[in-house]
């Protein structure tokens, strides 16, 4: 398998504060990589740094080309779909408008239509709520909408920031099941940030463990999953 995304010695800053101290990892074409770690380890910052939403140093290579320093909008247009922390719903727009804005940059109407049908197949509930103001959706529905918006971008890489956050276990299971389908059916590589390590390790093929802005451990998911030491020291379960 080829590498679709390679992050090299990535550093990130919020004002004077350095949040990432040289993080390196890669994401395989069609693969799912997860970034694990405690609060404040720099998981969210890594995703934000890839999309140039914070001040960064180091390099981000997408399909062999460096994308660092490009505007967030331009990076998105290259094929990145970032499902942000807190879901980023357009609360005053309808569900329909939320989905249409995500396809704003695409000119191929037929493909957009196809993706919309795919979204409704994954999340039939969104079709029922199509004219509803998106801010009135439940947390789970908003997460579904966030993933759907990402899909409507027609992405090559999906960056998912804690899709399980604040959701009931049943809903989380449903969402993770669909993420698995999206990964294989839409041929979309995924970089998954999660607090829920067990869940993430089941889905992902590779895992990187972050601590205070550094990668402290990495490897195939099943190795990380079965390593007692890693589990006890970093994943807390």
């Amino acid at each position: 398998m080829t590498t679709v995304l390679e992050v090299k010695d990535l550093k990130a800053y919020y004002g004077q504060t350095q949040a990432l101290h040289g993080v390196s990892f890669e994401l395989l074409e069609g693969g799912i990589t997860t970034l694990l770690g405690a609060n404040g380890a720099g998981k969210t910052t890594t995703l934000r740094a890839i999309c140039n939403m914070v001040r960064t140093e180091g390099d981000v290579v997408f399909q062999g080309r460096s994308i660092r320093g490009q505007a967030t909008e331009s990076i998105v247009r290259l094929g990145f779909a970032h499902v942000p922390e807190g879901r980023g719903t357009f609360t005053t727009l309808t569900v329909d408008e939320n989905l249409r804005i995500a396809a704003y940059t695409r000119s191929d109407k037929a493909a957009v239509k196809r993706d919309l049908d795919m979204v409704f197949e994954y999340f039939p509930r969104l079709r029922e709520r199509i004219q509803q103001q998106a801010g009135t959706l439940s947390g789970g529905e908003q997460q579904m909408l966030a993933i759907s918006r990402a899909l409507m971008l027609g992405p090559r890489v999906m960056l998912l920031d804690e899709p399980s956050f604040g959701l009931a276990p049943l809903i989380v299971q449903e969402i993770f099941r669909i993420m698995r389908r999206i990964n294989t059916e839409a041929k979309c590589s995924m970089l998954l940030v999660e607090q829920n390590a067990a869940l993430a390790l089941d889905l992902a093929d590779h895992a990187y463990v972050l601590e205070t802005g550094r990668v402290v451990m990495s490897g195939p998911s099943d190795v990380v999953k079965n390593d007692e030491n890693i589990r006890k020291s970093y994943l807390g379960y």
Partner: protein
Amino acid sequence: MEQLMQQVVSGLANGAIYACVALALVMIFVSTDHINFAQGEMAMFSTYIAWQLMQWGAGFWPAFFIAIAVSFVGGLTIERVILRPLHTAPVLSIVVVFIGLLAICNSIAGSVWSYLIKEFPSPFPKDTFGLAGLIGPHQFGVVLVTIVVLSLLFVFFRFTPLGLAMRAAAQNPVSARLAGVRVDWMLALGWGLAAAVGAVAGTMVAHIVYLDPNMMGGILLYAFAGALLGGISNPGGAVLGGFMVGVLENLVAFIGNAIEKSFGVYIIGNGEKLTVALIIVITVLTVKPSGLFGRVVVKRV
């Protein structure tokens, strides 16, 4: 009764102007949280451009459309050149820039075209237009033009991808960026549209208030009152608020007259129109800051 109808209907004509300016204010407010104090002066400047074009021999409508186009580009340029570098600046700096812009527009207009009051033509035919007795031809035309402009804007924002992108950028800039929307350009476009709508208001009202560099001062205040009354965060509300203030302003004189007739004392009249606008501003800000139709966003966590 007939007099009351007359007052209400002609109030709608003024209200149409206020509605346009109020909408221009709201368009910038929803995407940046700033009130553009220079909106009125920019509209005045646009009106002078139209006037100048007519002096050079253009007909009213060509001058009208060229002035709108120039204003659109002007508004866009002001955002890109003057406000873009300030987008992280504190609110007060931006307010000062707006006031500076106001002063600059005003004094440039004064020095180029002088402060002498000028007549501004009406494009609407005098005899065949309007509803006899109720509303004059120009006022009727103003209401028509305003309705057309507002409808076009509604269709643009509601049904076009670009309009949707502008709304998305205003509502949640971070998410809009993540959808690939060039948010900075959407803001600039908002400024351009606001300036264009202001140009419509200026060229429509100039026939009524006459053209001079201070013509929009009072109108901006009424428009601000209208925008606040309707809800500063709601474009539709601001438009309605603008119309309401226009009608209310006219009724002030009417009610004042009625009181004077029946009780023989003068309480309010034409002189207090502006006072009424200011009272509306203060009342709304203290009693219901979101305005009559200000959208209450339902949000679950």
